[in-house]
């Protein structure tokens, strides 16, 4: 153990707070986390001023304003290790749907005083702005993965967050495949593992919360989902959620954009 506890900060950009709350939701582990690191900046849980450098920064949320685009540069400069947590930070989040629409129009529909709103035309992942050392996928992230990441960083080893399919986790659990046995479309074969195959374990197809896995073949999966009866509009829709701005999902969405 280092003589001084590593300083940890949790930063929020455009997001719903769900991923940060995963840290507070770590129940049994929370005290151990607090014992192992000095949580120096975490507005959701503690008072603390931004000051000096941080050994580890967990960054939640995407970049949607010029102010945040500047702020992430400051966070990067203050951080030894920068970890993005959740689909907003790693891919741009659900709010990245704006990347495919006219933001000005949205604003005029949603806000009473559009002139008060200052925002960028896009929602972009943190990695589009600064160098990211590790990422935790998910909407929200998985708390076991978060504990694993912090434990690994403390031990100076690589976190075990494999980029293979959800199917592999599904099979480790002995689940019956919902696609093959129930004819339900499932994004598991193209989605990054990490959730423990949560939805297929409850008899639903995977929604792709963890974004594209390594080498995803979305074209072949779409063909099979069409074969199972899904129409073009719905295929476009399943690739238009939390990870819509992730490269491979965005490309697949566009393929069904008729």
């Amino acid at each position: 153990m280092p003589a001084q506890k590593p300083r940890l900060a949790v930063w929020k950009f455009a997001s719903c707070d769900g991923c940060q709350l995963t840290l507070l939701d770590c129940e049994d582990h929370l005290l151990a986390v607090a014992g192992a690191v000095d949580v120096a900046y975490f507005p959701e849980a503690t008072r603390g001023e931004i000051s000096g450098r941080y050994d580890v920064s967990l960054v939640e949320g995407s970049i949607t304003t010029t102010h945040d685009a500047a702020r992430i540069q400051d966070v990067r400069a203050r951080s030894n290790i920068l970890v993005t947590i959740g689909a907003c930070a790693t891919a741009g989040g659900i709010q990245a749907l704006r990347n495919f629409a006219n933001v000005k129009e949205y604003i005029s529909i949603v806000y009473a005083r559009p002139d008060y709103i200052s925002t960028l035309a896009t929602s972009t992942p943190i990695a589009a702005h600064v160098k990211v050392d590790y990422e935790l996928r998910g909407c929200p992230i998985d708390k076991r993965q978060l504990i694993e990441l912090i434990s690994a960083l403390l031990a100076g080893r690589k976190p075990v967050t494999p980029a293979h399919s959800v199917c592999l986790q599904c099979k480790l659990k002995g689940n019956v495949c919902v696609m093959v046995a129930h004819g339900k479309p499932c994004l598991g074969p193209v989605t990054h593992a990490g959730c423990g195959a949560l939805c297929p374990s409850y008899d639903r197809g995977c929604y792709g919360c963890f974004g594209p896995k390594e080498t995803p073949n979305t074209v072949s999966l779409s063909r099979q989902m069409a074969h199972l009866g899904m129409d073009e509009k719905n295929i476009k829709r399943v690739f238009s959620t939390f990870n819509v701005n992730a490269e491979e999902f965005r490309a697949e969405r566009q393929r069904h954009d008729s």
Partner: protein
Amino acid sequence: MTTDGAGSGPTAIIERRDLQALFDVLLQRGYRVVGPTRRDEAIVYDDIAVIDQLPAGWTDEQEGGRYRLKRREDAALFGYAVGPHSWKKFLHAPIQQLWRARREGDKTTVEHEPPRPERFALVGVRACELHAIAIQDKVFLNGEHADPHYRARRNDAFIVSVNCGKAGGTCFCVSMNTGPKVAGGFDLNLTELLDGGQHRFLIEAGSDAGREVLDQLPKRPATSQDAKAADAVIAATASSMGRSMKSDDVHQLLLRNLDHVRWNNVAERCLACSNCTMVCPTCFCTSVEEASDLTGTESSRSRRWDSCFTMDYSYVHGGSVRSTTRSRYRQWMTHKLSTWHDQFGTSGCVGCGRCITWCPVGIDITEEVAAIRSSEPH
């Protein structure tokens, strides 16, 4: 553990209404009885204690990428083919702890995970599955690096096999010379007979342990009529295989065609999802994972099923050797059908059809072989 070769000895008949006795005797003898049962619209392998947990009156329809349960017109207990699970989930656990280490002050102690013996009674093992178990035995029980965890789960296993009464839509055991007739490697072997409105089982023992259990069961001697009925069941199954594959020369066929365009074609369909390797009863690959706790006092190592379809699988310093799906699919298929022969002296495929049924996009190993074969001059 099974000892004899083929089941010789006299055969007997046990009535359907008496079959619970088999479960009772196995449980009394301290076995953990596992077998087929219906769950989540499939027939899976799980702990079972009573005969009512078997999927009476159910069957399955299987195609590439498709599996559906259907009602049978009779109340057969084993009237379906193999499902999503294989016995490897019991004998070669999906996740296995290997060791733990603890640091106290300056001292670090390492504790190896002791093998935990388990007495499984596997009920309803098919001929192809017996071959698959024999193949995994070869992998795990031989040589310098025999696996103590597999051995602890395998050594005392009691196997109740079943001659298949129905071929699945993706079965091709006949092509692989692994079924549908059970030919050794069991303690007790059953053939389910439903002819003449009499629901009964032809039963034979293949080991001393099997004979001991058989002695305790209510039964009558089998007649030549019963034996004929059993032969007819097996013959009907053998003639209704859902798939076939010419296997005698496939070893060389694939190795001659490592640059075939068909590998590109299949890579365009393959999701590299790893389902085929996970469901395959002979695939044995694992990855090793480290864990450490937040306080830095405990760490451990475990292994879990892995697949040659993941990028990590072929990761060496600097990157993955098999970065394309083409190279990963080719690894899987050539290992199953070609290089397994070089490595272990048998095929790595027993023709169970699981990889075809449980591939989300229905990629069919028999079709891929046929496609490559058809491009060669005869």
